């Protein structure tokens, strides 16, 4: 009996504690970054650090459930898809307001999507919208309208496609699809990127170029209870090691550039500070490309041999275990990742045998391009050492990012590239985004991003088929098809998948938030709406 009373009392205390655990809004946070924020125009911004700022300032038709890769509606109330998968009709939520106080109407969605595709916007995202009807005409300058996006009434948006496209909802959830008011864009012209107006959780309050910018809570935000913080200050120009010292002193709350490599081990071993670190996997893969058009990488046996010769575990150790070894192009958190696939095992003897079989028993000499920012040259050296074991003499070409990208875009310039620093991070959580530009035939063009110049018609057909499977009921089949596609690519071995990075974000004791705030697969690097201040709890 006594036990039961005690149990009931404990239960009562717990139940009383539940409301107290609800997060109280208010407070501020300071985020540090080394580099300047370039632009906050959602149609243009495509950088690591402005990505989550733009996401917080804007709203779009679709978004993801916080902390997950699950698509949900954002400013759309709901949507329907026609049976042929060619027409999507969205109904807008009523009363959603831009930061300038005006209500968002369907016409704004039409304007914003047209603006991204319009050539004069120079959006780096233009290509994402290729399946929308009228895309080609707008890109070619034959018309000023995107025929496939229309507004039958103020709260209805119709998106028509030329062919079924399973990625279109993801595209409509991208930052680039943010809905912006025409009057603000026209008022500021090219400077709109410094005076953004959206309908997101935060609005821009002040921006001192090169110093800081502040975002404040949008009181009219249409998602009840969000965001938690009243104000976020983005401090610019802070060297990561200085930012860490500032965080430890309570002057900075979130390290935008993560923990500096030189201090990483020390922080993780520190019982006090390691508690402030949140980690999770990124939708990212670091890989070595081998140019299949250049000798001797035109021989699949050579590429397979290289796959077997690279010691991925050592590379991962070298970067303080801030990654896990990879065996296929897709990262483990991406749909379509094959858990059962083992990849090429690290086997020097077998690699040598394969080279001998390819008539290269004495090895050969080649070049490995890499970006000249730490840790990439060190990783390149490790690869160089591994390949020397099987007789391949690698000359490292450590160069600026732009130079490496340009070399990769030439059919006969870079035999091998280590992708670090430029590695592929998914724009949206769908396997399609890991194929087209970097492994598909469309990317294997001059100036393209398919640096291995791999183009396999059979694989391309499989990818096209998977992309066309837009019926949600066939999602499992689609994932399976992608799985087969990527394993087939691995048989051809145009890449050595090396690792999938783990993200480590550190915050001060002044702020908190669970994983969805600090490690969100799409709100990279942070989901600012879910970070809260401990000072007001």
């Amino acid at each position, binding site marked *: 009996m006594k036990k039961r009373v005690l149990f009931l009392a404990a239960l009562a205390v717990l139940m009383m504690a539940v409301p107290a655990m609800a997060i109280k809004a208010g407070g501020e946070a300071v985020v540090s970054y080394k580099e300047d924020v370039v632009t906050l125009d959602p149609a243009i911004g495509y950088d690591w650090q402005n990505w989550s700022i733009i996401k917080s300032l804007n709203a779009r038709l679709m978004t993801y459930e916080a902390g997950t890769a699950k698509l949900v509606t954002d400013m759309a109330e709901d949507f329907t898809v026609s049976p042929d998968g060619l027409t999507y009709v969205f109904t807008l939520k009523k009363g959603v307001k831009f930061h300038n106080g005006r209500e968002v109407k369907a016409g704004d969605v039409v304007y914003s999507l047209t603006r991204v595709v319009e050539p004069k916007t*120079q959006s780096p995202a*233009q*290509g994402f919208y290729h399946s929308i009807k009228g895309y080609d005409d707008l890109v070619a300058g034959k018309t000023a309208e995107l025929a496939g996006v229309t507004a039958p009434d103020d709260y209805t948006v119709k998106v028509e496609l030329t062919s079924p496209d399973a990625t279109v909802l993801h595209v409509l959830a991208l930052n680039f699809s943010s809905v912006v008011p025409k009057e603000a864009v026209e008022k500021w012209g*090219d400077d709109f*990127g*410094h005076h953004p107006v959206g309908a997101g959780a935060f609005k821009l309050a002040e921006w001192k170029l090169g110093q800081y910018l502040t975002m404040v809570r949008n009181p009219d935000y249409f998602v009840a209870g969000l965001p938690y913080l009243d104000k976020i200050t983005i401090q610019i120009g802070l060297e990561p090691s200085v930012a860490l*010292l500032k965080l430890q002193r309570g002057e900075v709350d979130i390290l935008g550039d993560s923990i500096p490599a030189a201090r990483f081990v020390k922080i993780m071993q520190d019982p006090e500070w390691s508690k402030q670190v949140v980690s999770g996997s990124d939708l990212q893969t670091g890989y070595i490309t081998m140019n299949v058009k250049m000798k001797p990488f035109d021989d699949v046996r050579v590429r397979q041999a290289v796959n077997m010769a690279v010691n991925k575990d050592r590379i991962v150790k070298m970067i303080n275990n801030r990654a896990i070894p990879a065996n296929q192009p897709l990262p483990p958190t991406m749909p379509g990742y094959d858990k059962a696939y083992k990849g090429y095992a690290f086997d020097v003897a077998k690699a040598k045998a394969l080279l001998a079989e390819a008539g290269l028993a004495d090895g050969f000499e080649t070049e490995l391009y890499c970006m000249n920012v730490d840790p990439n040259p060190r990783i390149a050296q490790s690869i160089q050492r591994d390949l020397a074991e099987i007789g391949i003499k690698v000359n490292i070409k450590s160069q600026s990012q732009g130079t490496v990208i340009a070399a990769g875009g030439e059919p006969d310039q870079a035999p091998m590239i280590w992708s670090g620093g430029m590695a592929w991070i998914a724009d949206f959580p769908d396997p399609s985004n890991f194929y087209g530009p970097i492994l598909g035939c469309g990317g294997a063009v001059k100036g393209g991003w398919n640096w291995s110049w791999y183009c396999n018609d059979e694989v391309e057909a499989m990818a096209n088929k998977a992309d066309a499977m837009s019926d949600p009921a066939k999602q499992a089949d689609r994932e399976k098809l992608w799985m087969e596609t990527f394993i087939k690519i691995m048989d051809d071995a145009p890449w050595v998948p090396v690792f999938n990075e783990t993200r480590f974000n550190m915050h001060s004791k002044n702020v908190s938030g669970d994983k969805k705030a600090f490690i969100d697969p799409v709100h990279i690097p942070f989901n600012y709406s879910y970070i809260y201040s401990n000072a007001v709890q």
Partner: protein
Amino acid sequence: MLVTFLKRFSQSLGILLGVTVITFMLTYLIPADPVRMLAGRSASQETVENIRHQLGLDQPLPVQYGRYVVNLIQGDMGRSFKQKTEVTTLVLSRMPATLLLMAGAIFFELLIGIPAGIIGAVRRGRKSDNFFMMMSFMGVSAPQFVVGLIMLYLFAYRLEWLPLGGYGTLAHLVLPAVTLGITGGGWYSRMMRSSMIDVLLQDYIRTARAKGVSPWRVVMVHGMRNAVLPVIAMIGLDIGFFMAGAIVVESVYGWPGIGQLAWQAIQTIDIPVIMGVTLVAAIFIVLGNFLADLVMPLVDPRLRQN
């Protein structure tokens, strides 16, 4: 004097024009395509060419250069490829911070260099001379990045005397200015020392001493006035060094100057910004030399007669 002024002025303009040609050529010769960087990873060839056309980058180089110079004369340095903002706005927003940092650095390098040089010269070969020379050697050779981080750790983090980087007050200026000034201070002390030694061996110094002028007055008035000339000339030349040093120091301390802007523009191959910053840096270097030429005759009457 006026003729000299005009001659030097036209020379300076010629140098600046030369700088624009060289920078223009170099930025276009780098083996990277800014349009590709701008267009994004999913862009089609058509999109890339479209952007290239909009930016006028499909024109022959001489046409592009001509257009650049014509715009420049009208005060237009173009728009940043990446930020879309006018380069003039970007540079002007960063300029006050860099000028402040340079002024602070000059102050500290003179504060360190001149007294250390004088003491070294007067007490030549003694312990204090050896000490200052060793310090100046360290100052000249220490990498600014390392000095900056050590000073931040010591004076800002451990002792909490000064802010941990950032910008805004005089307290924020101290550490970056000292870091940038240390190298110059090292050079100045060596230069001041050797210049002072030369001057102290001159006949007029001997005469002053023989006439019973106090040693303090001999050194500080008769000696320093002549010995400081090369140091003044050096300040003008130093401005170029400051521009290079500013990139490192601004980066360590989060100082929002043009050094930081330059670094970022180089990373993203933002050609209009790279050219704008280079031109502004060149203007400063030319202006520094120009001013040094003007100021030196005011200090040394012999140069005026020449």
